[in-house]
Every structure is written in structure tokens, then in C-alpha cells.
């Protein structure tokens, strides 16, 4: 007998698990298959804090969100089968699954495909040389298998993946020699770029790889500047000695199962996706798609999309009435639409947004070099001056994120009801220097500054997520936003707390005139 389930979910990532949980909460009996030995999809490789608001699990690290989802799935009776590779989706909503040494046939009254995405690639001379890897491969090696992908790495791609993985490479102890992108502007969040730039990683926009060298393994890479027609400009070549080149040039939906099943598909600039409605219903009744497979977005969106599909499927199979479905969808829709707001909203993809919602000029230095220039930073509402310790929020792009506003026990920070607004520091409220805001900022863009502690010195408190953790009394160099040496610095306080979730608060003493410039500490 073929095994039959209310709902078969393919892929135990954020979308698939969320859908199964939502369906199970409505009384369905879902089964989730995943080809990997561990569930959670890419969440377990994502060690950074998520953006968004509370409902999007903001400021929680990806792998912890993964753990939460798994717990919720098991509490709700979702059956998750691992090392189970779905190899085909056939007529009659039948899937064939390779489990162990056999092929099992399952039929679902509904099937949800949540297979996620795979990495895009670009070709260049030497791109097949061992040592050229996908950014996902780097993440897998360092965050799942605990090995360094390489010692000296060049990253190609300045989207969020390229930026986040570059930072993770540094956290894993690798040196990132450069971040390169053929585009003229950084594609990902400015805050992600800024936290790499201040560590001294140079950005090369409008550049790409000419050649990777090395007969048996990578030993170097040459990049060059591109003209408007994306042709190399002679004489602009730069060569780096590296053992690893990491490629992060976007993702494509892994929609093969949907195509095999005969779902109507459409080709979009973002990849080959099923034609489906807001809750993921494809052209074949009972077959749904959620998460990256239906269009590339962040994991936070995938989780909401999954919930929407789960509710929709519960309605399709008669477990949830229409009114209840609509109410639930409306709630989820709102959460989803808030994530799709701001400068990085789908409709702004590829566009240059020249002003913030507040009417402030976008920092071109941030878009082209990875950091806001010293003379631009004071334009933003989170950057204020004050006597005594106070937060300096270097958040300059409208992105859907607001944990900082809840983090301050004194209510110093305000974003308001529009989640993409830039945070404002209220001048009339006294900062107690607790640092909760610093640790809560997923973009690591909040600093505590005290201009004058006497003797011509001030302090800067910054988020620090590297090892070894500097010790109090340690002397070193303060680096500016551009990663260049600013002045001498001495660590005067290091705070760690469970509440900070592995973000340490490092306070360094610098000369008073440098408190608005020094943003990173480098031990001598």
C-alpha cells in the first residue's frame, strides 16, 4: 500500500517546517522529508542575528531560530524524516523518496514543495580550480563542519550572502583579502558591509575576477575594473595571493520537482518559479510552493510564506473554514508585507535609491566603499551628540528592523510604527550605558560614545564577535569606519552577557577628538 498523508512537505527548511507546523496546528497530519542529515535548511548555517521585528524573530541568530522551529514542529506532532531524498513528484501527488536503501512511494492529499534555492555561478578563467567554492560551501564548512574553508579568501559578490559570509569567514579565523563585485554598488545591507569595512576589508565595486591561478589548487586571483559595458579596463589589474575564492552571486529557486510535476512555471529575472498565488497554490490543485523555491527572499519571509501555505492547505483539505483562513492570512500578510518594505523592497531591486524615507541623501560612500564617510554620518537621526554616554546609531538605510527600539530600558530609541524608519535617539532621555541596544542591533551599527572621560579621552563601546576577545588593559589601534588606523586605543571594559547572545561589548578609550571616528579595535 502506498503511504498516504494529508500533507507531504519536501524540505525541512524555514518554509517547509513553518508550513507543516501551521498545518499540524489545524489538525492535519503532515510528513516532512529532507535530504540532509539535519533539519532546518540553511538556518543552521546562519549564525548572524536576524533582522525584522519580534514576530519575525529579529535579533535571534538563524540557528537558534532553527532550533525553535524544530521544537515547535515536534510539539505539534510534525513527522520529520531526515536523510530522505525526494527524487520525483508524479501525477496524483505522488512522491518517490529515497530512504536508506530503498525507494518508498507516498501520496499526499496535498504536497508542499519547499526545496529552497541553489547558488548561481559566474565563469572566469580558473573557476574550476580546487579552492574556488560557493559562498554556501564556505558556510557549510565553517558553521556545520567546523573547518576553515581557507586561510586567505577573496569574496566575489556584495549581496547579503557575500557580505554575511565574508563576516563569518573572519569569525572563523580566515582573512578576507577583498570583496569584489561587478556591480557599481553594494547589493546587500549597508550595515553588513560596514561591519566588514571597519575591520579593514577593501571593497572593489565595478570589478570582477580576471583569472584564478594555481595548477592543482588556487594560489592567487587577479581582478580588474570594469567599464560601463562590463569589459575589463586594461591596466587596472590587481593580484591577491589567496588560497580560496568564494563566489556569492545570487541564488536560484530549486524548482525542478514542480517542473517535473507539470506545474505551470514562469521564468523571471530571479529564476524559474512556479506560477502561484499569495499562499503558494500552484496551477495543479493540491500542489503548493513556499520559500525560496517560489522566489528568492530571506528566511524570515520564507517562514511566513510557509505559515500561509500551511493555513491555505488546512482550508483546502477542510480543516480550516474560509473565515478563519482569511483572518489568519491577513495577519500573516501584514507580517510579510512589513518585511518587504524599505530600500531593499522587491520593487527597488537593482535601483539606486537616492534618498531615505526621511529625505536624507543616501551615502554613496556606503554603496561604493562599504562605509559611511565621516562627514556624512551626522546627517542620520540616530547619530547624536550629547554629554555623558549616549548611543550613536549608524543606521542609514530604511530596512525592516526594529529591535533597538525595544532594547533600551529607558526608551531612548524610537523607530515608530513604520518598521523601516531610521531609528531616532531622543535627546531628553538619559542613557545609562547598559549596552542592550548595542547587542540587539543585528547590523552591529550601534555604538555607545562618551566624548569626555577626562585627560582628553573619550570612550567608544562597540559590538565585538571575534576571537580572541581582547582583555581589559589591552592596547591596540582604533580603526575607522573605513578600516584604516585612526589612533591608539586601550580596552577599558569588556562586557559579556547571556542577554547579549555572544555579542561582546568592548569599550575602548580613544582621544576625545576620535570618538566619532573610531569604530573598531585591533589588538597590537
Amino acid at each position, binding site marked *: 500500500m502506498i503511504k498516504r498523508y494529508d500533507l507531504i512537505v519536501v524540505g525541512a527548511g524555514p518554509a517547509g517546517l513553518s508550513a507543516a507546523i501551521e498545518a499540524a496546528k489545524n489538525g492535519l497530519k503532515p510528513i516532512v522529508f529532507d535530504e540532509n542529515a539535519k533539519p532546518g535548511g540553511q538556518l543552521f548555517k546562519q549564525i548572524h542575528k536576524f533582522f525584522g521585528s519580534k514576530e519575525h524573530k529579529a535579533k535571534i541568530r538563524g540557528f537558534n531560530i532553527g532550533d525553535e522551529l524544530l521544537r515547535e514542529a515536534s510539539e505539534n506532532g510534525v513527522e520529520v524524516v531526515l536523510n530522505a531524498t525526494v527524487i520525483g513528484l*508524479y501525477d496524483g501527488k505522488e512522491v518517490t523518496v529515497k530512504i536508506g536503501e530503498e525507494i518508498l512511494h507516498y501520496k499526499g492529499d496535498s504536497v508542499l514543495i519547499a526545496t529552497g534555492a541553489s547558488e548561481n555561478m559566474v565563469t572566469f578563467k580558473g573557476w574550476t580550480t580546487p579552492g574556488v567554492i560557493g559562498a554556501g560551501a564556505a558556510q557549510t564548512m565553517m558553521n556545520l563542519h567546523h573547518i576553515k574553508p581557507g586561510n586567505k579568501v577573496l569574496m566575489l559578490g556584495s549581496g547579503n550572502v557575500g557580505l554575511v559570509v565574508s563576516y563569518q569567514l573572519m569569525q572563523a579565523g580566515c582573512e578576507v583579502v577583498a570583496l569584489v563585485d561587478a556591480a557599481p554598488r553594494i547589493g546587500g545591507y549597508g550595515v553588513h558591509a560596514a561591519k566588514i569595512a571597519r575591520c579593514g576589508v577593501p571593497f572593489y565595486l565595478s570589478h570582477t575576477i580576471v583569472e584564478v591561478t594555481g595548477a592543482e589548487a588556487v594560489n592567487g586571483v587577479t581582478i580588474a575594473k570594469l567599464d560601463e559595458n562590463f569589459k575589463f579596463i586594461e591596466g587596472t589589474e590587481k593580484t591577491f595571493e589567496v588560497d580560496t575564492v568564494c563566489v556569492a552571486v545570487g541564488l536560484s529557486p530549486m524548482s525542478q520537482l514542480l517542473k517535473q510535476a507539470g506545474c505551470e512555471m514562469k521564468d523571471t529575472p530571479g529564476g524559474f518559479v512556479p506560477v502561484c498565488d499569495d499562499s503558494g497554490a500552484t496551477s495543479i490543485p493540491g500542489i503548493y510552493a513556499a520559500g525560496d523555491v517560489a522566489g528568492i527572499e530571506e528566511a524570515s519571509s520564507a517562514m511566513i510564506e510557509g505559515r500561509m501555505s500551511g493555513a491555505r492547505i488546512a482550508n483546502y483539505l477542510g480543516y480550516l473554514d474560509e473565515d478563519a483562513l482569511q483572518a489568519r492570512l491577513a495577519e500573516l500578510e501584514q507580517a510579510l508585507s512589513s518585511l518587504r518594505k524599505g530600500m531593499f523592497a522587491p520593487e527597488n531591486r537593482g535601483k539606486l535609491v537616492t534618498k531615505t524615507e526621511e529625505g536624507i541623501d543616501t551615502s554613496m560612500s556606503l554603496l561604493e566603499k562599504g562605509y559611511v564617510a565621516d562627514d556624512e554620518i551626522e546627517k542620520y537621526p540616530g547619530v547624536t551628540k550629547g554629554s555623558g554616554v549616549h548611543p550613536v546609531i549608524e543606521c542609514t538605510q530604511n530596512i525592516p528592523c526594529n529591535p533597538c527600539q525595544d532594547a533600551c530600558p529607558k526608551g531612548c530609541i524610537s523607530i515608530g510604527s513604520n518598521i523601516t524608519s531610521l531609528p531616532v535617539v531622543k535627546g531628553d532621555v538619559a542613557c545609562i550605558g547598559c549596552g542592550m541596544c548595542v547587542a540587539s542591533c543585528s547590523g552591529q551599527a550601534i555604538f555607545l560614545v562618551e566624548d569626555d572621560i577626562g585627560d582628553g579621552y573619550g570612550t567608544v563601546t562597540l559590538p565585538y564577535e571575534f576571537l580572541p576577545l581582547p582583555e581589559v588593559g589591552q592596547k591596540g589601534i582604533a580603526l575607522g569606519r573605513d578600516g584604516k588606523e585612526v589612533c591608539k586605543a586601550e580596552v577599558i571594559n569588556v562586557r559579556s552577557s547571556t542577554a547579549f547572545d555572544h555579542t561582546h561589548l568592548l569599550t575602548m578609550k580613544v582621544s576625545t577628538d576620535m570618538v566619532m571616528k573610531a569604530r573598531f579595535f585591533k589588538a597590537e
Partner: protein
Amino acid sequence: MSKMTADVIIIGGGVNGCATAYYLAKQGITDVIVLEANKSVGHGGSSRNGGGVRQSGRDMRELPYAMYAVNNMWPTLSEELGVDVEYYQRGNLRLGKTDAHIAKLEGMASKSRELGLNMNVVDAKTVKEICPYLSDEVIGASWCPTDGHANPMLTTLAYYKRALEMGVRFFTDAKVKKLEKVKGKLRKVILESGEVFEGETIIVAAGYESRYIARTVGVDVPLFKYFEEALVTEMQPHMFDIMLGTADADFYGHQAQHGSFVFGSDSGLEDGIDMDIDELKTSSLTVSAGCRAIMGYIPLLANAKIVRTWGGWIDMCHDGVPVISKVDEVPGMILACGFTGHGFGTAPAVGLMLSQMVMGKETVVDISALSYDRFKSVR
């Protein structure tokens, strides 16, 4: 757009259509148009078959031209077309595991020998000498040393490419809706999209869909459609170059030049398939059934990984051999359909003969037995 009239219009950009176009052009007739319904040339059975270039086991009505192709055309085809079509003439073993199998193979072999084909039944020991990788359960096989295999995708595209180079015009995404006669002679080809082509001679070589097209001028061929599947493995170390089949007909195939193994197989449930001709969906059962069959004869392939499966429609003719003939009551029409799943290996000969028919020449082999009007009631 180039003009839409031609001396010859070929409906169907499969291996037979492309080969015909090529042989016409080679003989100087370049005012030829090929209409392919799909966006890709060779979308149908021409790219979906197992690549057998086989004479053994053929009906006596088609064996002569199958042999003509093997003797006179296949060995030089790659050179002629300028594309390596991966032709290997290393023989065909049809394997038997039971006495009944051997008896069946004996019958086939003796019939073929009568027509001059070198085909014998060999014992288990000889089978092992020819192919040491086979199961000990094999007790004998028929052996035709002059059979072989080629790459059907490359062969089809090679004919296409050469015909293009010689000036033949190809139109893809050009699905024929109907044919029309003008003054008693077949003349017009009207597409679903409305375009009208006109030709002196119109060849219908469109697989099963030939039936729908021919019907529009009152000609019906007793075809039925049958869905069959195939699979291919990852690249494997080189094992053998022969073509394999079984008396039980549970699989057939070969190791391609690339190293992968290509096998056709079935689940036994094909008769019950209810699927539209435009759909090409594989079944969830066939690939597994195929693997069991293959491993029953070549146990060493147990660890070879399947990378892809596919299926295709076969234009089965009522009596198992194709219709390759002019249509007397529709002057200007030539039918070439009903190849019944074994049309690839004969395509060079069929293409050549169709070109000869167009030119009013005698065909290299007499094929009058393949006439469209041979079907008679039996009671």
C-alpha cells in the same frame, strides 16, 4: 521571413525528416522546408530512443533496408555529416534465461538467416566471451555481429545541421493544423498559428501526430500511441560496446561513448496509460522496474547511479512495421510514419528512400510492402 513555398515540405523535424531533407539537398534539391511542431528539432522519439542500429529481430518487410543502412550508410555517416554520431558496430546480443527464451531466439535467428543476415544463437560460454559482465543466469543469446548502436540525438542534429548548411529551411514551433489540396493535388500546409506553406511534394513524417495530419485530407493510418521510458546512468568505466536486448523484452540498451549506460525499459503497465500526446510524464514505477530487469542481466551495474529518466511516445503501427509510401488518391503526399519504436536505426535508409521517392527514382530497396493501403479486414 523567407518564402513559404518549396519543392518539398517535410512535416516533422525528427531523424527521418532531417535525414530526408539532407539526402534531398545532397542530390541537389535544396528548395526544401522542414516544419517541426516543437521548439526543438528532434523533440519526439528521435531523441528519446535507445540508439539501436539493429537488423536482428526485424520484420522481413523492413530487414532489407535496415541491412542497406548498416552495410552502406552507418559506417561512413559521421564522416559524411561532419559530426561524430558515435556509431559502434560491435554486435547485438539478445539474452535468454529460459528454454522458452532460447526457442524464441532460435525462431528469430532462423528467419533472419533466410534473408541473408548473419544471426545465430550462441551458448552461455560464448555469451560470456562476447560480454563477460553478464549474469550467470543467462543460458544463451542470439548474436548478430553486424548490429550496433549510435547516438540518436547527435544523429538527428547532425542531419539537421548539415541540411541547414546546404540551404534547407527549417521552421520550429510550427505545428501543423491541416493539409489542403488545390485542384486535386496536395498543396497547402496550414499551421495552428495560421501561416500557410505550399509545396509540390509534402512528406508527413510526424510520428503519431502524422495520423491527425493525414486525416485532414481523408487518409487514415492505423496507428496507436504507446509510451515508453528510458534511463541513463552516470559515466562509468568502459565495459562493453555491444547492444543488449532480451528475449523477454524487459530492457534493451548499451554503454554510450560517454561512459553512461542508456537503457529502455517498461513497467508492464504501459497499456493502461491515459495521457495526452503532448505530455511526456514518466511513471513512478517504471524506473524501478527497469533497474530490476537490468540488474537481473548485468549485476555489476547495481552501484551505477541513475541520473535521468525520460519517456516518449511511440507511433505503433497496427502490424508492427511503418508506412513509407506515396498516397495514390492524394497526389503529392508521401507518408512516413508508424515506425513502431524501431525507426532510428533505419533512418539513413528511410531518408534516402524518401528523397528518391520525391525525385521519382527507384528506391534502393523495394518497399512496396510498406504501402499505406495494405491494411485489410481479416474477417
